[in-house]
């Protein structure tokens, strides 16, 4: 096919550029380009096995169902589905949201809910509502890579609290809050992904959830709970969301249909106390007036069929198998010095390598072998952190691709480990199973030790 001719506007002179540069708002100076942007451009090549994405598997969604629903929308509600809608979203969409939240034991007041353009917009709107330049925002270390540019664009001073296998270290959070107290400062919000965290794959324990909610209540601080993966649990007992424990006074809840239905429909939501919600609605009005009415109709039809839980169950089956495949491949192909999380749900595994390996550089090497992952630094505001970790996605790739992708990354790591041995005279890595790790309370902070190794 011939390329459609189109006009390209080129900057013709440096002066033009300087003219624009002079117009940029101060916040653009701290906006981060996504880390390793140019390397990631190469990951889009079709021959690359990408464990870098955050994609749910949409290939098993029944095409017949999709066609039938869209046809019904066209036949019965064309005019409405093509029209603007209320900023807060349709009441029918909110009903679907209440069903989803009910499945995790939450019962919000429908008036506290706003439908947003994906969960990402909800993060943006909450920050827009409460964060002034220089305000403190607290999040986990590592944190959701997509939240980092949001915090940066509102010029927040972001403090990251280490995670361990039980999620955010709440004791450390209290120490940080104490230090801030001494300076007469308090954070505007504490952002957390408590279940199957992106990128670390860890889940906050019940005890810490209770403590976090208690701290928020005592200190009257806002916790922002981002819960895209809560219903994607492969094993273990479900834990109550922070929102349920708190009752919705100091916890703002963010949910999304992206991981339980489709990210392409761009439907998420936020639940907040009325005074906060009022401002969020005004913010959304300024941003995009309303969320897509067409896809809200789709969700209404889809939930009307009553099979949405069964579809999630089918996703859980697929993802559990893929996680198992990835963990098995990691055990086989990653060196003994590497460690990784074994998530009970969600989409991601977080792997940590010996600290002399920079995963940004490793990515360049891996790309020569046509495999990609997300370097850990993307999950930190301070780019010097997370340098020896990586995020691996298992939900959007087939078992074969997972095995082959991990094998190739493992080979690249093995070469670096061997080289380090040759450079320093340190013992070369012998990939033998370690005995089960002994008690490690202090060392249990990220980087994680691998679990289950040697005991299976």
């Amino acid at each position, binding site marked *: 096919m011939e*390329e459609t001719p189109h006009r*390209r*506007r*080129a*900057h*013709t*002179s*440096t*002066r033009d*550029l300087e003219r*624009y*540069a002079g117009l*940029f708002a101060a916040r653009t*100076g701290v906006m981060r*380009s996504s880390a390793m*942007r*140019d*390397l990631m*451009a*190469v990951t889009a*090549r079709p021959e690359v096995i990408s464990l870098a994405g955050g994609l749910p598997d949409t290939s098993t969604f029944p095409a017949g169902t999709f066609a039938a629903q869209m046809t019904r929308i066209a036949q019965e509600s064309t005019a409405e589905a093509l029209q603007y809608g209320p900023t807060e979203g349709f009441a029918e969409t909110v009903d679907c949201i209440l069903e989803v939240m009910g499945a995790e034991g939450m019962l919000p007041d429908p008036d506290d809910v706003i439908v947003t353009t994906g969960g990402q917009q909800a993060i943006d709107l909450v920050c827009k509502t409460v964060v002034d330049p220089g305000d403190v925002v607290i999040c986990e270390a590592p944190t959701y890579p997509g939240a980092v540019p949001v915090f940066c664009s509102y010029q927040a001073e972001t403090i990251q609290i280490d995670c361990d296998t039980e999620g955010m270290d709440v004791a450390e959070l209290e120490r940080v809050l104490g230090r801030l107290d001494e300076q007469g400062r308090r954070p505007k919000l504490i952002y957390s992904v408590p279940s199957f965290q992106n990128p670390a794959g860890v889940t906050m324990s019940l005890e810490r959830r209770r403590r976090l909610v208690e701290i928020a209540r005592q200190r009257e601080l806002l916790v922002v709970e981002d819960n895209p993966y809560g219903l994607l649990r492969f094993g273990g007992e479900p834990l109550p969301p922070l929102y349920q424990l708190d009752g919705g006074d100091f916890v703002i809840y963010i949910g999304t249909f992206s991981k339980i239905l489709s990210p392409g429909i761009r439907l998420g939501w936020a639940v907040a106390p009325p005074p906060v919600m009022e401002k969020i609605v005004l913010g959304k009005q300024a941003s995009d007036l309303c969320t897509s009415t067409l896809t809200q109709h789709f969700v209404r039809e889809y939930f009307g069929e009553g099979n949405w839980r069964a579809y999630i169950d089918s996703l859980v089956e697929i993802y559990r198998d893929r996680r198992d495949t990835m963990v098995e491949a990691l055990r086989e192909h990653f060196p003994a010095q590497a460690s990784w999380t074994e998530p009970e749900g969600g989409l991601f595994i977080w792997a940590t390598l010996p600290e*002399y*390996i*920079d995963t940004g*550089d*490793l990515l*360049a*090497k891996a*790309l020569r072998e046509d495999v990609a992952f997300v370097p850990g630094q993307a999950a930190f505001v301070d780019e010097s952190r997370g340098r020896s970790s990586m995020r691996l996605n298992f939900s959007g790739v087939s078992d074969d691709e997972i095995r082959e992708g991990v094998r190739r990354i493992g080979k690249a790591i093995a070469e*670096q480990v*061997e*080289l*380090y041995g*040759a*450079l*320093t*005279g340190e013992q070369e890595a012998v990939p033998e199973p370690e005995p089960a790790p002994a008690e490690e309370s202090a060392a249990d902070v990220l980087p994680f030790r691998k679990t289950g190794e040697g005991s299976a």
Partner: protein
Amino acid sequence: MKVAVLKGGRSLERGVSLRSGARVEDALQRLGHEVQPIDAGGDLVKLLDGQRPDVAFVAMHGLGGEDGTVQELLEILGIPFTGPGVAACGRCMDKVLAKHELRDADVPTPDWFAFNQTAFRELGAADALGKLEERLGFPLVIKPSRGGSALGVKFAASWYEVPEALISAFSYDERVLLERFVEGRELAVGVLGGEPLPVVEAIPGDGDRYDFEARYEIGRTEFVCPAALGEDEAEAVRSAALGAWEALGCSGFSRVDLILGDDGPQVLEVNAIPGLTDTSLLPQAAEAAGMSFEQLVGKILELALEQAPV
């Protein structure tokens, strides 16, 4: 004229190359040429052979496009192309080879030693590292021999930082060089058909070193062109740049990167096909010489046709 613009490819600098290519295509269209954009992939030769352009504008950076590979194919196909030829591209891309050529031609370049992975893995080269301290001193710059855009370049302030930096550099190439760090001003001289363009100085913001992201983000690095240099200094810089251009056998256009330290200018590397993006240095230098981007592209094309074998 039918002009094929070769861009993209598989190199790590694919993103930069796509931006260079897009800008060149726009300029060529404004100049009234028939533009054939080609994202260089498995069908490159077939496409070129089918389209038979009058000339190919090579807007590719990094391995594959800047190292002589694509140039060799264009020679086989008998299609004239922009920028340096096969041999010059090969010399520029390999920093170790380039530094030997510069040294042989008495063009100043910082002292260095180079190693390949085999030396460490099989010949115990690690034991030689200790001897480098007296020869080069610290800090050291450690970089992959082939590669551009500062990818994999690390500074080592002491021995403790050397192994890690070596592993980073070896992620990009089988051979790395350890180079004496020269404190000084960062300069770039674009050379167009053997004539130097005004000198550009890159002044990194916030004490940052001139790194990969700073190079391609508006506002991260301040560029001054022409650089504020005394007459003698400017002459020494130009002469070092031209010396490097000649020593490596460049033609068409290229960019010479230098450091101006206490002992005068030292050539760090020559980019056979420098970036042509909005924030790239060569277009800025051309502009300072009163040449618009269209004029620059037109001139580069003209040089390609002049040097093409008849």
